[in-house]
């Protein structure tokens, strides 16, 4: 019986279109083929929500303000800002909108829940169906809320999500007081189900990954006290080849990540053994000498911001990374 797997990708902050997952997916396909000798039989579906952010960044008709703003320079500056693709305007504003704009957030959550829910329905069409969610960066916070909504509305009462992989997990960094990531009294339902009949946990398995060189999830690391059988928290070190340590491609290229992802997608017990993972880790090339300087700069940041919490720290880290051209 071959397993039919659907893999859902959720992007992080910044501008994204429906091709954002292609590089990571191509890498996983190529890696599976080289490891197993078989093509990866799975379907990837990108979930894009950047359109909601983009529309809000453009919201408010400047033309309406024309009678009040005689200075065309002011209007022009506002217009330029609205169409800006700068890091500050896209990445940071996305995070701020997500955190502080409940109506935009609700629109995103319900849009993605409506896309994910039919995939859960499809899982009930047979026993040979699999659904794997891979979220990155801001997408991990988004996935947490989407899955919480599905659980809260009872969808996952009937079918648990088999596997959710959170790359650069910021679910704790961006948690809200009314919906903590895992702390009592009422944590998010995006958590492994303990098989207790009263537990509404939505997942069979929760995987969290953190690159030790990535400062963003480090600000408030995800460390729930869940059963180690149901929750795996992997911390690894990867600088990435030509991209920054927070990038989804940096994460997917790490053996600690792709071996777990590919196992989860294929459930191929013959290929994805713990022994094979050790071999892959041993074959990983050491960090390039050219990146040692960046690592040194990062160590300084790590000491300054390790284990701190709060949005201010988060913003300081991002700002420091930007200043030191680590992005």
């Amino acid at each position, binding site marked *: 019986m071959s397993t039919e797997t659907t893999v859902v990708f959720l992007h992080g902050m910044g501008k994204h279109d429906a091709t954002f997952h292609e590089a990571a997916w191509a890498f996983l396909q190529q890696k599976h083929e080289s490891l197993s000798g078989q093509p990866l039989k799975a379907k990837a579906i990108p979930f894009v929500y950047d359109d909601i952010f983009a529309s809000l960044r453009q*919201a408010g008709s400047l033309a309406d*303000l*024309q009678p009040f703003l005689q200075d065309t320079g002011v209007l022009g500056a506002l217009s330029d800002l609205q169409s800006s693709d700068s890091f500050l305007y896209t990445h940071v504003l996305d995070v701020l909108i997500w955190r502080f704009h409940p109506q935009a957030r609700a629109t995103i959550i319900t*849009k993605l829940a409506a896309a994910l829910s039919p995939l859960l329905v499809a899982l*009930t069409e047979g026993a040979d169906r699999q659904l794997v969610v891979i979220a990155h960066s801001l997408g991990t916070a988004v996935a947490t809320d989407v899955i919480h909504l599905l659980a809260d509305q009872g969808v996952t*009462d009937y079918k648990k999500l088999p596997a959710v992989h959170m790359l650069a997990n910021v679910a704790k960094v961006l948690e809200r007081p009314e919906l903590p990531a895992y702390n009592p009294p009422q944590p998010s339902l995006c958590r492994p189900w303990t098989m207790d009949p009263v537990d509404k946990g939505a997942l069979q398995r929760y995987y969290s990954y953190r690159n030790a060189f990535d400062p963003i999830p480090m600000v408030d690391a995800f460390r729930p006290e869940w059963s180690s059988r149901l929750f795996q928290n992997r911390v690894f070190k990867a600088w990435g080849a030509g991209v920054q340590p927070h990038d989804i491609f940096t994460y997917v290229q790490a053996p600690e990540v792709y071996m777990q992802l590919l196992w989860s997608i294929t*459930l191929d*017990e013959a290929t994805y053994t713990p022994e094979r993972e050790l071999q892959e880790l041993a074959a990983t090339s050491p960090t390039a000498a050219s990146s040692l300087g960046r690592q040194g700069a990062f160590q300084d940041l790590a000491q300054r911001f390790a284990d701190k919490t709060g949005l201010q720290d988060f913003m300081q880290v991002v700002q420091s990374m930007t200043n030191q051209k680590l992005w």
Partner: protein
Amino acid sequence: MRTVLALLICLCLPLPLCAAPPAAAGVATIPIQGRALAIIDQSLADLDAAFASDPQAPSVQRLRDETARNLGLLRQRVLAIPGLPAPALESFASARPEAAPAPLPEAARAVAELNPVWEVDRQTRGERWLFNLQLNPADAKTVQAVLKIQAQVFGEITQPSARVFIIEKDAQIQKLASQWKAFYEHVTLQEYPWESLANGWFDVKRAITDIPTRQVKILHPVSGVVAFQGRQSSSGSPITGAEVLGLQWYDPGAGYKPTWGLGVLATLRAEGERSNGLGLIASYRDFKFGYRHSRRSDGQKVDQAIISINLARYFDFAPNSLLKEAVDKLQRGQGD
């Protein structure tokens, strides 16, 4: 697959073949329990037989006990399902939501909610888990029997039941998403950033299932024309200002189009006036009308009725050249 078909056929068969009496004239009932109970009872018997002859029985005692307990729990819930009307059964089994009875029996929901319990968890490499127990040793007769029981219970009882209810829940999620989409497009995106953020802050504790039907307006720019002033038919002067604070209601039934609104109006000083204007502004749909008060340079009070540009056009004040000129002026963005 054949057993699933057999269940569906049995559920849809005429009454005599399924040996179920009608509950009332005209409404045939077929107990869903029949097939499910047969599966459960046979499973219990198979489990006992496998365990009794299993040389590795001591190491699978907990698995056997837990399987028996869960079969018992499932049996109890299946028994609680009352006889369902025939069309309901058909939809229940074939998972056609459009034909499903509303509401579906709560007892059937209780069976559907056991579906995750009966699913084998394979997410740990080299291991299979069921009922929070590892299916180990894999070659034990009891483990093999449990896997066979699981496949039948999951495939024929819990998963088809779950499918009906998860489709029902999915429909609710789709509706919620379309409502938020309409709200976002017709309300949030029409606001200025400061209004949008303020409204979000006001609603920070609102449940996601409770979509707002009103929004606060704050410093919302308003353009209009003076339609009436004192006994004059029209002054025709353009008015620019802002709705300092107001409330706007929306109609969820019409895709969150604006309905009524009311707010406090502050306008810039017009030519020949000593003070800025204050007043009230009301709206219906995208038409605005209101009252404005200010003072002229000579100290005389000015009371004006103002209307929005689109309302002026709606009333077709074209013959009034002053009004037409004011509308054109505002549209060109040359308001005072």
